């Protein structure tokens, strides 16, 4: 426990204390009688119980929080893929991550890779050099698992788009957007015990682009997308 960590806590306590002070002086002025008190308390308890029941009947329009085992499995898949990707072991790529693949014939001897729409790279790129003498470049795009607070949001994140323009591979980041979720907890955040905390269940997957390029082609990677 750090001493500085106490400061925001003390701040909160101070604000709460102020609220108490005000509430106290206000309540002194109101002449609460016992009947009103009893009525208030029972009404409040009634509302609470009603809320519990109503909550059960609100249809679930959201995702479930995945459990620990599933989280570990997904995390493992991502790790395996990343390793294989870095080692150019195409055979080990998990086919479920594949988003799309195609071939493109280059006109010249250079391939320029351009990343736009974002100040930082939105995809990871790796190149496998082939012995082919032809002008064909093979492209595969992958997307690995993304988890936030135990929610699988993989399908909800739009991917970068890839376009060919005269020997240029243009990777455009999706338009800036926002995903907002509420997750309700029965527990005290401050008291979460052990290392199995839902808040920690996050996997930050990526978009991967795997190119097979003939050796004689010169690749210009201005934005440094290449993965080493």
């Amino acid at each position, binding site marked *: 426990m750090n001493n500085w960590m106490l400061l925001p806590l003390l701040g909160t*306590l101070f604000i709460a204390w102020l609220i108490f002070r005000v509430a106290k002086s206000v309540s002194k002025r109101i002449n609460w009688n016992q009947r009103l008190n009893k009525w208030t308390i029972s009404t409040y308890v009634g509302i609470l119980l009603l809320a519990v029941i109503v909550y059960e009947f609100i249809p679930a329009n959201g995702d479930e929080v995945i459990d620990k085992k599933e989280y570990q499995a997904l995390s493992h898949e991502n790790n395996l893929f990343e390793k294989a990707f870095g080692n150019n072991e195409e055979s080990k790529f998990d086919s479920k991550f594949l988003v799309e693949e195609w071939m493109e014939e280059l006109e010249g001897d250079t391939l320029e890779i351009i990343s736009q729409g974002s100040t930082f790279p939105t995809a990871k790129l790796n190149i496998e050099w082939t012995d082919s003498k032809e002008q064909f470049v093979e492209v595969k795009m992958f997307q690995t698992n993304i988890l936030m607070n135990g929610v699988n949001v993989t399908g909800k994140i739009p991917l970068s788009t890839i376009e060919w323009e005269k020997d240029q591979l243009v990777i455009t980041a999706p338009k800036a957007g926002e995903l907002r979720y509420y997750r309700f907890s029965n527990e005290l955040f401050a008291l979460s015990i052990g290392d199995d905390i839902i808040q920690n269940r996050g996997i930050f997957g990526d978009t991967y682009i795997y190119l097979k390029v003939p050796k004689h082609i010169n690749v210009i990677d201005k934005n440094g997308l290449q993965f080493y």
Partner: protein
Amino acid sequence: MMFLSNSTLGEVVKSQVEFKLNTYMGAVASLILVQIIGLLFSMNGTGSSGTSINNISIHVSIVSLDIVYIFVALWAFVIGNMITIKTNWHSDFSFVGTRLSSSLANIIVLCMISVFAGVTTFLSNYVLRVILLLFGKVDYVKSSSIFDDPLNSILNIGVMIAFILMISAIGYFRGILVQNNKIFTFLLPVLLITILVTKSGQKLFQYVFIGNESILILIVKLVCISIVFFALSILCSNRLEVRS
């Protein structure tokens, strides 16, 4: 002929508990206000984590009990303290009672209030859930409800009750000390800060509150601490003079 009525300690404590529950009804009602303020502060989530992937920022707002709980804990301290103020302590002696019976009745009432506060705090979360789901335009993650994991819910309620009880016990103890000697008003905060700042004090805190293997152990620890404070309070109040 004298007609002396004999009351047993149990009878007197029972009457005092009933009387005090009636007396502190307003204080219990104030808990509702406290919880509502806490809920308003919790509207935007008590904790949130966010990250940005592919230009998309993802926010998960966690609506937990923490903010409400901080308010309620403070409330519990104030209530524990309030029970010891002169009018309340002295009014016991307008009726039948000894210092022991008053202390026991106060402790029982604090236990009952703590249970009420713990349970309502836990349930107040559901009011927020319903309000956010019905009136807020956001996606939400289907989160566990009481019925999904009853055992865990009960343990969570238990730890809340135990925490509130402990804080009210501390508040009560503080009140009794101040009734004994006004100097404690200043002495106790100084003592608390000293404990929080020193290494050994922090170790003690860590031992008690952090790194518990299970919630159950934490509950047991909290209840034990409460018992210690209550026992000290009984000892300190047993010589307290009234209306002097």
